[in-house]
């Protein structure tokens, strides 16, 4: 029996030694771990990510780096979406505004055609034709005349200025509110990490006064829009129309001249009143011929003329559209880009607080 007891004794000693050694190793490891956690910088970050307190608009939030980056990315994405929506809305607004603006000149096309095919218009056309024979610029003044009828000065200026100002202020508002919107989105994203109580002594203070630093992009539309709407109606179209009319009425003029010659021949038997008769016949046939030509011209070419005016108005409207969109939407986009830079400047110190 003693032998059995002797055989188990070494085993129990070994076990007790092992237990003791285990305790010793734990007793060495624990203070080492405690020393490390006290002496190493930020030792808790491998268990619990380092958190910091930031203040936005006197509201304190306590969060770690990952939470901050996710909140910031979501806010910036939402801001981008909002900016794109604003630009799309402005684009539509510009189209609608221009449609409304150009209702005025389109409504004046008929009136302009009435003048063009009136006696005064005929005189102006002849004068333009005569001037054009010398230096080719004769139709500029005719185009000016038509332009002033399509775009009546006072009415057009008032309408243009009021509508463009409305667009400008809309663009400026959109630009001004985008940073405010970013502020709201950021607060919403950070709401889960909000802490109450006195926020003083927070690790980082983030000023929300971003708008004070951002400058409004100056969008000056007046100087860049086609101001000379008078010459917008293209002089070349008018000279083309005149040339075509010239061909059309050549035969009528020839017939008229024939009538004049016959009349003047008949006056040869009038004796001393022959010259007066001839002048009268010449003047009468001239006026009648020209009136006939005017009516003929109007009946044949008025539709084409009005179509040419509409085409010109479309072209002018397109010029306006391109210029306004370039200036306003381009300017707003530039402002949004500048604000991103400002946001980065304000928010990057917070991101740098958290190690990657």
């Amino acid at each position, binding site marked *: 029996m003693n032998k059995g007891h002797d055989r188990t004794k070494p085993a129990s000693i070994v076990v007790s030694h092992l237990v003791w050694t285990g*305790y010793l190793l*734990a007793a060495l490891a624990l*203070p080492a771990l*405690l*020393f490390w956690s006290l002496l190493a910088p930020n030792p808790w970050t491998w268990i619990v990510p380092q958190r910091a307190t930031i203040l936005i608009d006197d509201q304190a939030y306590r969060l770690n780096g990952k939470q901050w980056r996710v909140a910031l990315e979501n806010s910036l994405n939402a801001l981008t979406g909002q900016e794109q929506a604003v630009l799309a809305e402005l684009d539509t607004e510009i189209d609608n505004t221009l449609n409304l603006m150009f209702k005025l000149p389109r409504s004046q096309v008929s009136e302009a055609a009435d003048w063009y095919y009136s006696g005064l218009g005929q005189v102006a056309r002849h004068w333009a034709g005569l001037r054009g024979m010398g230096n080719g610029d004769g139709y500029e003044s005719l185009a000016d005349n038509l332009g002033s009828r399509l775009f009546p000065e006072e009415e057009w200026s008032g309408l243009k200025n009021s509508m463009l100002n409305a667009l400008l202020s809309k663009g400026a508002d959109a630009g001004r509110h985008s940073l405010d919107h970013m502020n709201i989105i950021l607060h919403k994203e950070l709401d889960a990490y909000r802490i*109450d109580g006195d926020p*003083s*002594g927070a690790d980082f203070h983030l000023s929300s006064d971003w708008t004070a630093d951002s400058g409004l992009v100056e969008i000056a539309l007046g100087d860049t829009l086609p101001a000379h709407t008078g010459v917008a109606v293209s002089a070349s179209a008018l000279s083309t129309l005149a040339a075509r009319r010239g061909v059309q009425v050549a035969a009528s003029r020839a017939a008229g001249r024939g009538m004049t010659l016959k009349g003047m021949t008949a006056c040869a038997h009038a004796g001393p009143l022959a010259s007066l008769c001839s002048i009268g016949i010449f003047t009468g046939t001239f006026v009648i011929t020209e009136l006939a030509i005017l009516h003929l011209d109007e009946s044949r070419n008025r539709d084409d003329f009005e179509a040419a005016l509409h085409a010109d108005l479309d072209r002018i409207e397109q010029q306006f559209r391109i210029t306004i969109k370039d200036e306003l939407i381009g300017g707003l986009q530039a402002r949004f880009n500048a604000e991103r830079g400002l946001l980065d400047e304000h928010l990057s110190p917070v991101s740098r607080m958290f190690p990657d």
Partner: protein
Amino acid sequence: MISLLRTHISVEDLRTAICLWILLGILLALSRFAAALPDIWVAGVVILLAVPLQSVLFWRRRMRRLAFRRACLKRNSPYFFRIRGGLWMFLGQSALALMLGSLLLVGLARQEHRVFWLLLVMLVPVWLKSNHFLAGYFQKHVNEPFHLVLTHRVHGLLFGLCLLASLFAWTIFQPVINASGVAFEAAVLAFTRETAMRSTMLGAGVDLLAGMDAARHWLGQNLMETLPGPGLHGLIWLMILIKEWLLVWPLLLMFQAVHLLAAGHWSSQINRSGDER
């Protein structure tokens, strides 16, 4: 080799040291995260801290009552058993334990310098050895039921005095915040503003201690020239001592509780303490 080491370091000592270091790790973690705890969590932590404190306090109170009973009452008297300490003593010591638990948590939330924690970690073997020494000494001179409680009381007192002296010296040599020429209210506001606690209860406690700091700094820098020097010095030192003692006292009790549990005295002696007829 292991046998040689085992003659000097027993398994109980290792186990007790491990438990004390684990306690320090838990307290260090509490110190780190206390600022982020909401009110409900703070209440829960205070209750958890109060449990071991209440056990030690109740045990010590009962032993004191036993000493009184043995000294003043006859064994065959019915009162010898009746006044051993029951529900009221339990409730009284629980209230005291809750208060000490709160003080401990407030002290931890102040985030003492890491030198304090390094000192505590290094003093664990010293704690064990000094406890063994005192236990051996009192075993020769003190009656059986009382030698454990007396060992721990005296040990705690001596250890506490050493810890207090260290903290006192550390505080004296800390850089002084300039509060001269500032109104008392402004100084208190400046000190309390530095703390940022999520829990209002914990914040109130931390603010109170910060206010004590502000008061001693303000007294020292503004009234030193006008009031008698020794008196004012004494008042300032007393304020430092009180502030540090409010942390050391519950900390030592917690150490004793864990020591008693780890050393196996809990089930053998403490549970049955004072119940003899």
